[in-house]
């Protein structure tokens, strides 16, 4: 098992390196001279040349790339006192990573709440329709899942905002009340979770239906276990591995910043920050957010993989 984990860790390093490389390439594709933006609009040509040199933009591309990777890596005692330099935001006149980290808690809160809603809504629905396939309940959930998957998230969010924020003033109309103000969290997390809930309902339903047809479940039933025991003790645990995998990845993607939801609800997370940065032509901030998000996604995948070794013994011995 340790071999597996070590392999996965190496994989993570490799993937992150690739991500950084692509991020670097894209960030340098920017039309316009980064030095000029950095130096400020009134700078003389001499000042710009000096900034060019300071930023190291006159060195060969490969040297700049290596330097970029070196700057991005976290600080190492003695060898490397500074690190985690994701770039410098022209608009905020501040380094990128601190700006992202400042907005990250809001995104994290939304991500966790979103996953929570996905599970809370999706799983019971999925389980119940698997138990009673073909019933009215099953058909009703099918309709729900169809619509939930097909509705564009920004539209759903707007409808929710309008109906539950304005027509029936239950919730605030977008915005953020700090980490511990749940009333602001409900509508965006619900919108985020609804699409996922539909997916999980179907996922669970499909898995359970399959499992409930297998031999060992038939054996369990033959042994005299009640249907409820069969479902709870045999069917669901087996389906859990799939669910957990999916959840882990969902969390990763959500943490990378759910741009659409944040925009509709004016939720001050890293996604909205990146979109605002596009319209102010602040490329370093955008690419820094992309890199940050990729790191989160890869980490989430790694965690899911490693947890898999505990959840599914088959993996350990392969």
């Amino acid at each position: 098992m340790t071999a597996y984990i070590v392999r996965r860790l190496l994989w993570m390093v490799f993937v992150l390196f690739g991500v950084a490389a692509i991020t670097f390439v894209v960030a340098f594709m920017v039309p316009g001279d980064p030095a000029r933006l950095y130096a400020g609009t009134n700078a003389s040509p001499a000042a710009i040349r000096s900034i060019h040199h300071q930023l190291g933009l006159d060195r060969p591309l490969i040297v700049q790339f290596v330097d970029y990777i070196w700057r991005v890596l976290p600080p190492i005692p003695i060898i490397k006192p500074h690190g985690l330099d994701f770039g410098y935001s022209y608009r905020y006149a501040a380094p990128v990573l601190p700006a992202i980290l400042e907005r990250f808690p809001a995104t994290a809160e939304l991500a966790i709440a979103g996953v929570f809603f996905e599970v809370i809504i999706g799983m019971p629905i999925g389980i119940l329709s698997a138990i009673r396939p073909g019933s009215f309940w099953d058909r009703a959930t099918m309709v729900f899942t169809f619509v939930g998957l097909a509705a564009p998230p920004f539209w759903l969010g707007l409808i929710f905002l309008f109906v539950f924020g304005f027509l029936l003033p239950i919730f605030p109309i977008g915005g953020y009340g700090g980490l511990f103000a749940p009333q602001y969290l409900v509508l965006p997390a619900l919108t985020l979770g609804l699409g996922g809930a539909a997916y999980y309902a179907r996922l669970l339903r499909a898995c359970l239906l399959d499992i409930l047809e297998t031999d060992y479940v038939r054996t369990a039933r033959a042994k005299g276990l009640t249907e409820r025991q069969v479902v709870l003790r045999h069917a669901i645990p087996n389906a859990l591995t799939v669910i957990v995998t999916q959840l882990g990845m969902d969390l990763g993607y959500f943490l990378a910043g759910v741009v659409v939801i944040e925009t509709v609800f004016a939720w001050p997370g890293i996604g909205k920050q990146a979109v605002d940065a596009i319209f102010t032509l602040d490329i370093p901030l955008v690419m820094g957010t992309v890199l940050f998000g990729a790191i989160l996604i890869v980490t989430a995948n790694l965690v899911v993989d490693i947890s898999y070794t505990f959840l599914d013994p088959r993996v350990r011995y392969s």
Partner: protein
Amino acid sequence: MTPDRLSALAMFAVLVGGLVWLVRWVRQSLSWRPVWDRFRREPLALAGLAFVLVLVSVAILAPVLPLRDPNHGYYELLPLNGRPLAPGATFLLGSDANGRDLLSRTLWGARVSLIIGCLANFSALALGISLGSVAAYFGGWMDMVLMRFTDIMMAFPVVLFSIALIGILYSSGLHGNLLVIAAVIALFYWTAVARIVRAQVLSIKEKEFVEAARALGTHPIRILAKHIFPHLMPIIIVYGTIGIATTITVESILSFIGIGVQPPTADWGVMVNDGVTFMQIAPWLVIVPGLMILLTVLAFNLLGDGLRDALDPRERALFRGAIGGVAAGGGGLATGQRATLEPGLEVAAPGTFEVEEASG
């Protein structure tokens, strides 16, 4: 008869003719007839098909239909306070705040969404299938490179990176270009397709008929084309439909944010964005285009779902793995990629447990 209208009618004729030919061919084909029969018995799938056909027809025939210019604002018909006109006699679905005919814009918007959706989907398929099957068949370092590269691409937050890419082009005047938008969307989806195809090819290439062909000395490309590719058809068909649902959703998201299709081109995502400010006095401006996106995505999903069920009910497990993989590997789940309906057991996600991974 303007050239626009002529080509529209011609395309429509081709579409109808092609469909008729297809149905007739399928009905007398030994392997495909049973699929068709199964498909016909699913009312939801048929409903999806009907909607898709109607939508595509309307999109193609838009220049011919008696619709107003979707981009022209009839400011002179607006009241002095600029209030959008409610649905009524002059404008069937009302007007937007620039005096443009909403019905016309909605129907023309279908064109844009379908064009970008199809373009993106088919390029992703083409690229994914070719690279995935070649890598799987030849194995070795080619396979490893593909797997590593798709791992990297799948690590990116899709919507954010698309926004970044298009945003970078924003100031260079390329923004709003439909091809660019389609290319950016395809850039992320081809990786998911490649992985699924790869899994499928890996399992097929061990089969006896392939070994036999190899023993006979058949050229690898010929093997791929003649023996392996036909077995990929089910995946292609199902992905071809469900993928469009996904790409249309992503495109509408990009346009809603403001870096996809640019005004004044009519596009559902743009229309929702434009309508937000008028939600209280003219809610139809938001409801109609959003509803269209919903129905379109739904229809393609139902169609794909039905096709998948019809293609081979016994091999549902295989498909589940396939389709789940697209949804999962496509990235950014809640932001639009979850347009597939029947997720899989063996979820082919980046780096997660996969039979091939563990053994290779």
